[in-house]
């Protein structure tokens, strides 16, 4: 089983969010980056579980600059076999998807796994685009993955229940919460990660199809108004007259 796991970096959830250069650039000063949790906890860990049970190889792929290498080393410390960094500045989702697809197209991966979204941009579209570009089946938001005799069985959470899907041949999935449990690297893994191969390949030619205009922070939270539980009428009046939401 040959598995490609695509990982992105994301700011730690405790980071203070600020922008520079006229609100066109995320201010990385003092920000701690982590492996995007959906990529790490679910996609990578499940890929490793499958490899450990059935044999094979798990390759990490990131699209980004040298600043990606700490999170790639972490993924190797958790247990991936090797890694590839496509040396390109991330821009929009289609650009990233084209880089991944271009790299993966002739490598014969059985499964290409991504997290369901990054926790900073929340686009959720890269894996679908990769599948389209490679003309492969795509199973989004999978919460369970089993592979037996070349047939992959996946579960997806759908409105009011679960959907079970079978796929034969190569495919792309996006992993959602539930597919696996977070795995903390151990010291043996950290030591092994020092010498695991990390290949840097140049960016593939691709157009950026959108242009970022600016970022804005959400409006500051207003003061909290407490209404006595006995005064439901006041609540309705305030929602109607002041908040104007009903």
């Amino acid at each position: 089983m040959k598995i490609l796991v695509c990982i992105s970096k994301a700011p730690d959830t405790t980071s203070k969010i600020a922008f520079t250069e006229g609100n066109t650039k995320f201010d990385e000063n003092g920000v701690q980056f982590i492996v995007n949790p959906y990529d790490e906890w679910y996609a990578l860990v499940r890929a490793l579980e499958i490899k450990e049970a059935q044999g094979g190889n798990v390759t990490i792929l990131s699209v980004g600059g040298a600043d990606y290498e700490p999170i790639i080393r972490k993924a190797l410390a958790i247990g991936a076999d090797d890694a590839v960094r496509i040396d390109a500045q991330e821009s929009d989702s289609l650009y990233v998807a084209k880089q991944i697809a271009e790299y993966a197209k002739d490598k014969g991966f059985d499964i290409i796994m991504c997290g369901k979204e990054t926790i900073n941009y929340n686009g959720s579209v890269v894996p679908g685009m990769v599948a389209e570009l490679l003309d492969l089946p795509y199973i989004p938001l999978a919460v369970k993955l089993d592979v037996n005799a070349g047939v992959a069985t996946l579960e997806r959470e759908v409105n009011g229940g679960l959907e079970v899907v079978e796929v034969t041949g190569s495919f792309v999935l996006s992993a959602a919460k539930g597919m696996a449990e977070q795995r903390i690297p151990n010291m043996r893994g950290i030591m092994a990660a020092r010498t695991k191969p990390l290949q840097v390949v140049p960016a593939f030619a691709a157009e950026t199809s959108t242009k970022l205009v600016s970022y804005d922070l959400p409006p500051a939270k207003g003061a909290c108004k407490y209404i006595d539980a006995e005064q439901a009428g006041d609540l309705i009046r305030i929602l109607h007259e002041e908040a104007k939401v009903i």
Partner: protein
Amino acid sequence: MRTDLYQGHDYYLMDELLTEEHKLVRDTARAWVKKEVSPLIEGAWEKGEFPRHLIKGLAEIGGFGPYIPAEYGGAGLDQIAYGIIMQELERCDSGLRSTSSVQSSLVMYPIWKYGTEEQRQKYLPKLASGEWIGCFGLTEPDHGSNPAGMTTNFKDAGDHYVLNGAKMWISNAPFAQVAVVWAKNEEGRIHGIIVERGMEGFTTPTMHGKWSLRASDTGELIFDNVKVPKGNLLPGRSGLGAPLSCLDSARYGIAWGAIGAALDCYDVALRYSQERQQFNKPIGAFQLQQKKLAEMITEITKAQLLTYRLGQLRNEGRATSAQISMAKRNNVNMAIQIAREARQILGGMGITNEYPIMRHMCNLESVITYEGTHDVHLLITGMDITGFDAFK
């Protein structure tokens, strides 16, 4: 206990001095602590038991001999990585750090440095994996700050030694398989000797009634005509300098660890001061609370700088015992003061087990006393700078 919301504090951007591997080691230890230890530490402390099921995980994150070479089962990391692990463990609980630093610095270190190749091969891999736990016997009921006065002794009985005496205040003793014991030979020279559980005449009664380090097991080591094979003597070094060099390593780890306890108290107090409202504003908006918090982060930052530099010197093999004494003394005292101030910021909530501060405060009362008391370390600095020995 509440959810562990801890995040590190790095006022002088010390992280920029760390390697990516250091940070990975730290994040690993922190993630493990939050997942496996934080939810149960208050319960373990109240019960007065070291949670032994943690040993395997502690080994996996590098808690046992991280600087021991990989050929003996260690992780082959540097001294700063060792310090970082100690900091993350003590951030949770000094007893957890004690279990780890005793195994690393007081058991694995002397076997690695002063043992034979056969002893290294026999003990180190099992200690690194946590299959065996070790303890260190130096302190005696009547000899604490004056270990040279020890009475534990061994006699040559032909094909073995016969060991007699008693050690007290020994971390890990109640469940250790291996004890590195310091005892005098017939000429009065101090030697290290490895005693294994199961040797006839060797017992390890648990000590009860501690109001400190309750999540760490402490006991006595009693030797009643214990026959120890001659091959268990550590041949590489003798004299008081041998156990003291182990203490250098452990005290170095404590210097880092104490910063962890201080950071946890500061982190809790800072967050509480921003959330707790009195007189219609957060208490952190009042000058007296700001004074406490500002002094805390100042002292933590000074300790971080001192200790990082000490780590560099340890890596280069240049740190002196006196430099280590200064860091251990300064940092533990800093942590205990911060625990007391942080407790006040939390008001009444500070005395409950919903917050870790009172537990840290109680633990640090041991840490400021063991491995050289606060006063003894001061005299070490005094002797180092004046050239006069004020111990006797």
